[in-house]
């Protein structure tokens, strides 16, 4: 069953008289349990695609169905709800709240969902242990390395048990050894837990860890292939 169904998505930015077409009729679907890498050079429209897939923005036209919900016509607050419940974000710059602990960061989306405090703590501890940070739960982000911060972000992304884990250049800001660790966690949660992962990257090395690679260029999909030479950690 398709967890993501994008049909003929267009996104046009209007700047004065100038129209910029960022996405020009993109259609694809992603099934539950897939691990997809979206690749493309800068300006290809992959960031715009990530924003739409992440319900951070809505398409100019076309339809985007996420886990049975039509997302393209929602209001700001409804989008916030969809992001909270269906999407686990992992950003290039980690985007942890400074000053609060790893545990507090992982608990944040659950707080916005209105989950009781005890349950939040329990869940946050479970996912932090899963990403190997059981001894770092009380650390704030400036006490953690880049790789560790990204692992906190993964735990946060998983905490709501979302329909998809959406990663935007997840290894862009961390050293290569730690990048490998992050990819190993991605493969673990994908293989063992069955989480669907959509990862945007421009690094072929990183994309090589996925099961399927979609290439985007000039706002269009130019190739969509199964990754036969998958790198397994």
């Amino acid at each position, binding site marked *: 069953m398709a967890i993501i169904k994008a049909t003929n998505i267009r996104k046009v930015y209007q700047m004065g008289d100038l129209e910029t077409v960022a996405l020009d009729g993109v259609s694809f679907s992603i099934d539950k349990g897939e691990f997809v890498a979206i690749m493309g050079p800068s300006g290809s429209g992959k960031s715009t695609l990530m924003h739409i897939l992440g319900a951070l923005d809505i398409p100019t036209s076309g339809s985007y169905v996420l886990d049975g919900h039509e997302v393209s016509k929602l209001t700001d607050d409804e989008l916030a709800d969809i992001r*909270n419940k269906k999407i686990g974000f992992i*950003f290039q710059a980690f*985007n942890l709240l400074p000053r*609060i602990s790893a545990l507090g960061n992982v608990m*944040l989306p659950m707080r916005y*969902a209105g989950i009781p405090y005890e349950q939040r703590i329990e869940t946050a501890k479970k996912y932090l242990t899963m990403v190997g940070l059981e001894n770092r739960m009380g650390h704030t982000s400036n006490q953690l390395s880049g790789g560790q911060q990204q692992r906190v972000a993964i735990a946060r992304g998983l905490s*709501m048990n979302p329909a998809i884990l959406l990663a935007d250049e997840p290894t862009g800001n961390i050293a290569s050894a730690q990048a490998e660790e992050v990819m190993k966690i991605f493969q673990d949660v994908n293989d063992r837990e069955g989480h669907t992962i959509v990862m945007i990257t421009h690094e072929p090395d990183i994309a090589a860890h996925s099961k399927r690679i979609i290439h985007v260029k000039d706002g269009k999909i130019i190739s969509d292939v199964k990754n036969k030479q998958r790198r397994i950690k």
Partner: protein
Amino acid sequence: MTLKTNREELNSMELLQESLLTLTLNKLRTGLAMLGIVIGIGSVIALISLGQATQQQVANQIQSLGANLLTVSPGGQSTGAVRGAQGSGTTLTLDDANGILTSPQITTIDNVSPETTSRAQVTTGQTNTNVQVIGVTDAYSTVHKTNVSEGTFISKSDVTGLRKVAVVGPQVVTDLFNGEDPIGKTIRINGQTLTIIGVTESKGGTGFLNQDDIVFVPLSTAQKQLFGQNYLSSISVEAKSPDVMEQARDEVGYYLLARHKISDPTQADFSIFSQEDILNTASSVTGTFTALLSGIAAISLLVGGIGIMNIMLVSVTERTREIGLRKALGAKKNIIVSQFLIESVILTLIGGAIGMVIGIIISFAIASLAKLPVVISPEAILLAVGVSGGIGIIFGWYPARRAAGLQPIEALRYE
């Protein structure tokens, strides 16, 4: 349902904790933002309590003149467009005063004190002073609750015997006798030598209300020997109780109208005041001053509020990425709005509390310097809390809306 309430309580507790954490991060800025509110609330509280203290002091002084006192003054008569000045008339006589006391139609009064007031130079030979000289009967001390600290007050026989005696106020003792015991000594007024038989207790007061800078003489002596006039400056009437003041005023008024053969009350050649009238006039004057001063202080509150708004706007800009992230993770608009509103309300409430304490300290300091009573009204404190909270909401609203309106993509991209 209970679970949901608990959950919301927990959430607001966490929001509160988070806001406090954010505010303590930049202590200098938080302090400066609060300062405007501290100064505003502090000056409002200090000025309100100062105003109320003045009001109360004036009221106390007027009350000390006698709570159920009516004062009949001559004048108040209009001749065409000209209205005679209060107290300048010559229409009240001793017979009027005796008539008020003895008339069977007047049932609500206890005592009547006819009085004649003049200013005169009083000398002892070495020194002299210009004071108020009041001709009185023995009724004066009862009606005005004037007691002597030494000697005796003017008696009935002093009045009938036209005796050359005087009772002086403590200020006169200080001015003329350097505070020495003046009983038995003499003073001269308008060429007449008077023997001092008593000193009144201090009643305090300043300026026109100074009740200590006074010389009392027998009414008959004042009229016939000192000033050569047979009319009265005023008649003080003591009502039986404060409850019958209105009735006493009517009875005395109609009696005097009849005696003076005046049929139209608007043409009366006298006027009657109660202490309450004077009190109301004085309170309305001091009340206006209080309102004026508080109004000026309120402007500093407004400026303080704008300061809060400014700081909150800076804070929104600085935390654009944080807001973007929170929205990306599922924070709805009202969560962001309440987060920023709570911060600004905490700022103004703490500022208001500090301002309140400072305002109260200032009130105590001024009160002890100016020898005023300290009045801290609960209304002023409620006002301070309400106003500072309100300022937090009003001036925090725009920055909070602005934060909540940020688009998550733009906000996350913000450097």
